[in-house]
């Protein structure tokens, strides 16, 4: 006789039983690599010890797994394992780096430099620090999304604490010149260089020593690892001093207290190891898919603008289809999972600030689609998406008054719109 009722968990509201849409939103998150899942599972089933337990085998084996993961992540970025601090994600790492350094040095250093195209967590942390009395310089970007090195040099002041510039932009795929920026910052003693490498790590080669990086944020779920884990590289030679934002038992060198989630840490470590091993193969494949997508779309659809540097990371392609709104495109592409920069797709009804910083015309920001390709994307998926887009764009343009005006030869930028 069963003493309890065996209930199968219901998968509500999932796409179970139906064909799943094609996933082309790799910048939002990536699927967990099956090898990563295999590595994680034992630490959820029977090796469930707390890695900080020093007195028994459960703790020792968990600690060993955590240290192995730390080594894999350090190898990915050319660091020493002792420099890696595990956090809950890149958002926490960014917060820790910016607020930690700013608060530690608040007596003598009151200035922070960042760019206008950073991730929201960096911009919001800077805004919070501004409220506390710090000065923040938001560097503008050029039309291709890259910052100007002379502007950066000019912005550094004697009281600058930290320069934070992301390696690869999540919306446009633009790659910033991290090595050159590192060289500039290195010339100014006392200024730290932080880079948000969540989209870059595991995809393009990064070396913290070659690039003179002092702090780096990493995210597990952008490298085919699990969600809920990230890491922060904190240089020890020369030592970066920062104030922890989470206090407790002093784990992770006192910089981030709290029990480590062993399965997630192991997952991230395994994901990093696989990325290092397969980086060239992945990059070649993704570049091939990206070129295929862009050439095919440009050959069959006109008035398409690519936002951001075409020499950026190939796995992130941001295209604006003029005279068609992004959200209506997404509605037609319902078998494809994509993201758009239009206001209608954001919770705040504001179009993408990154595209606006790039100097894109306002209506182009509303017309943008972001294609994110990854390790598991296939050519057939790209072909399907291209076909769908070609058919849908023409249909939507026929419905668009702006397209009609352009066909008649009217210059839309000269019209005085009746704003609502």
């Amino acid at each position: 006789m069963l003493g309890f009722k065996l209930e199968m968990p219901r998968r509500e509201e999932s796409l179970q039983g139906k064909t799943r849409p094609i996933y082309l939103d790799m910048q939002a998150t990536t699927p967990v690599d099956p090898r990563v899942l295999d590595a994680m599972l034992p630490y959820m089933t029977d090796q469930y010890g707390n890695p900080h337990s020093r007195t028994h085998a459960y703790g020792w084996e968990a600690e060993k797994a955590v240290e192995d993961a730390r080594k894999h992540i350090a190898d990915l970025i050319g660091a020493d394992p002792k420099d890696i601090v595990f956090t809950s994600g890149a958002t926490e790492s960014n917060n820790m780096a910016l607020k930690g350094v700013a608060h530690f040095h608040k007596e003598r250093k009151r200035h922070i430099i960042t760019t206008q195209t950073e991730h929201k967590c960096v911009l919001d942390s800077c805004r919070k620090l501004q409220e506390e009395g710090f000065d923040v310089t938001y560097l503008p970007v050029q039309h291709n999304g890259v910052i100007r090195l002379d502007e950066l040099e000019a912005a550094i002041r004697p009281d600058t604490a930290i320069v934070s510039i992301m390696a690869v932009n999540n919306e446009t795929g633009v790659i910033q010149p991290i090595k050159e920026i590192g060289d500039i910052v290195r010339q100014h003693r006392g200024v730290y260089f932080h880079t948000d490498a969540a989209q870059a790590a595991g995809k393009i080669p990064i070396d913290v020593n070659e690039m003179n990086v002092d702090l780096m944020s990493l995210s597990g779920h952008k490298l085919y690892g699990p969600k809920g884990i990230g890491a922060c590289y904190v240089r020890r030679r020369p030592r970066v001093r920062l104030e922890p934002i989470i206090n407790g038992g002093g784990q992770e060198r006192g910089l981030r207290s709290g029990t480590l989630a062993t399965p997630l840490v192991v997952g991230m470590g395994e994901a990093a190891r696989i990325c290092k091993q397969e980086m060239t193969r992945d990059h070649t494949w993704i570049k091939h898919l990206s070129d295929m997508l862009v050439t095919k779309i440009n050959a069959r659809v006109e008035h398409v603008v690519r936002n951001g540097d075409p020499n950026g990371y190939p796995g992130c392609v941001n295209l604006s289809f003029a005279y068609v709104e992004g959200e209506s495109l997404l509605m037609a592409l319902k078998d494809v999972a994509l993201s758009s920069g239009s206001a209608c797709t954001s919770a705040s009804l504001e179009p993408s600030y990154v595209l606006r910083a790039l100097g894109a015309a306002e209506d182009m920001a509303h017309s943008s689609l972001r294609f994110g390709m990854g390790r598991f994307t296939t050519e057939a998926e790209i072909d399907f998406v291209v076909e769908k887009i070609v058919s849908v764009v023409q249909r939507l343009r026929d419905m668009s008054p702006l397209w009609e005006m352009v066909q008649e030869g009217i210059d839309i930028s000269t019209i005085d719109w009746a704003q609502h």
Partner: protein
Amino acid sequence: MLRSALAKTVLNANTRGTRVVVPQVLARGYHEKVISHYEKPRNVGSLPKNAPDVGTGLVGAPACGDVMKLQIRVDENGIISDVKFKTFGCGSAIASSSYMTERVKGLSLEDAEKIKNTEIAKELCLPPVKLHCSMLAEDAIRSAIRDYRKKRTNLSNPKQTGFIDVSQSAATGETVATAHPSSV
């Protein structure tokens, strides 16, 4: 006995699970009416702008991501006989303008002016964040009616000869100057 009891509960659980029906709303977060208007929009197209019985309303701005052009053809009894629209905007904006064209066809100008955006929003089950799309559709029909009325007054009040009549179309921004030389 244990096995059969186990099998029975598992079997029951399975049938319970497979009967889950995912309502259309969750598929993309859109109501099926919005999707229907989007897939098969009614009355897409254009009417000749300069025709005397056509009123054109153009509202919105590309910077906001929403532009609607609504054209109505009015017969001599003041009844809207034909409607056409074009929209640059999200699915809800397209559905709102499409539904508006269906709604006003056959109505008099006074009745069409009275249509409120809340009616459109209710019919399409628009979520609160999309209410401005229905607002824009209401603006579009009013703008079209206003344009039509302005055209009628210009035609029915011909001024004395010996002047140049300059008008600018709201739809295209095109300026038209017609000279009426005096017949002296």
